[in-house]
């Protein structure tokens, strides 16, 4: 049985967002998506959790790994971005958010278990997606997927991803990929939450109707 990298780093009794998180860009923005299952061991602690954290007006972070660690990290970054906005007079860039998060994760790598995707839109770069792995690696990527369930959809995303999709196409791809991952990964499940981030605003949605589910053979 495959076990996720996160499950090895969690302490006894710690709550895990063993999960699937995705970010797919489209023309003018990014769609981020996540499942909603939070587990302690084999018990589902919260079946409708929100793993897509708002960092600022146009920047979101998807959380995977330890629930406590990632909640604390996103609270810190939200605070730093508010400070940056006051100090610079401009909304923060996605790159800034990602690198602030990288700094925290890297410098505390011994005590944290957090794999996150930072995605959003800013006036400098437009849509941008950064993936921050367990040890603190920060990579700018064309599309990102992470969490224990992401292993099952690498091939699907590699073959289905196209540049310059529309918002609806990107959202549909996010839901399809998440549904497939949730069907195969025990640590992912519940509902599919998506947020479409654009310059004009953000569009949050959720669905409990999975476009793909357990197949009856």
């Amino acid at each position, binding site marked *: 049985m495959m076990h996720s990298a996160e499950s090895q780093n969690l*302490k*006894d*009794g*710690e709550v895990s967002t063993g999960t699937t998180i995705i970010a797919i860009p489209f023309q003018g923005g990014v769609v981020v998506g996540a499942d909603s299952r939070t587990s*302690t061991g084999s*018990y589902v602690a919260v079946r409708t959790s929100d793993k897509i954290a708002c960092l600022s007006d146009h920047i979101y972070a998807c959380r995977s790994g*330890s*629930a406590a660690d990632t*909640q604390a990290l996103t609270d810190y970054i939200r605070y730093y971005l508010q400070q940056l906005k006051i100090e610079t007079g401009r909304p923060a860039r996605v790159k800034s958010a990602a690198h602030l998060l990288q700094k925290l994760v890297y410098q505390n790598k011994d005590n944290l278990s957090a794999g996150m995707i930072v995605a959003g839109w800013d006036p400098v770069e437009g849509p941008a997606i950064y993936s921050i792995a367990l040890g603190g690696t920060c990579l700018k990527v064309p599309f990102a997927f992470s969490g224990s369930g992401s292993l099952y959809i690498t091939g699907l995303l590699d073959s289905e991803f196209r540049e310059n999709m529309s918002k609806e196409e990107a959202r549909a791809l996010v839901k399809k990929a998440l549904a497939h991952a949730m069907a195969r990964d025990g640590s992912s499940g519940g509902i599919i939450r998506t947020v479409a981030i654009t310059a004009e605003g953000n569009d949050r949605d959720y669905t409990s109707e999975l476009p793909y589910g357990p197949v009856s053979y």
Partner: protein
Amino acid sequence: MTAGSQMNANNLHEPAAGFDFSNYLRNQNLLQTDGAAPKLKAKKTGTTIVGTVYAGGVVLGADTRATNDTEVAERNCEKIHYIAPNMYCCGAGTAADTENTTALISRQLELLRMDTARPSRLVTAVTLLKRMLFRYQGHVSAALVLGGCDLQGPHIYQIYPHGSTAKLPYTSMGSGSLAAMAVLESSWQENMTEDMAVQLVQRAIGAGIFNDLGSGSNCDICIIKTDGTVDYRRNAVKPNELAPLRAQVQRSGRLNMRPGLTPIIKSEFKPHPVVAAGGETAMEVE
């Protein structure tokens, strides 16, 4: 004993000359077993606590058993703690941790109410609790269900010992949480009346009391309404009364003797001699 320590019956109280290696064996043992401090075994804590939102507020429920491993330390303890006039918190985990954590945050909130001249909000309590628990990295074993009503409406939060939180319409924590959650998942509805919500919580706690060894005795209920009133029902349901069982035991009549059965033959009173202060009965110290 190893060379260097002089341990015999005659000089037990004398420190050994030179280095004392008597702890060497102990340290070797520790390194073999664990190296560091003994690992705390992760266990679901002996309790069933439940919280749910309803149309007019929130209802919190808890069992009343406090355990020391398999022994029942207290049969009727209180697990619903006061946080603020509009907030109560059920606690599962180490009793000392839950009581002191909730008391600490309760006092911090009171000071904040004095500073801001406003009623406390649940998000404030949740943030204070999660920041503290995260700082202690899970060593403060307090799993909490916080419920109350503020200007934004009724809320229920669940808080884990490591510092993660979740906002939910209904939740359960503790070792009996699976039994309680089974009841909640089958019967919970949106916009319940107060009676429906109280019945649901009582059934959920009852599921924990009867199906979980770590939970038992009675069910406490606390209803916090959006208009600010609190109805704390201590021992709302008592399904495990001991008095009728005790009454059935036939005990000898000699154990309960009324006053007056023993006849008094003679009665005498002698006052105790009073000694002057600093007199000849003063103690002598060598």
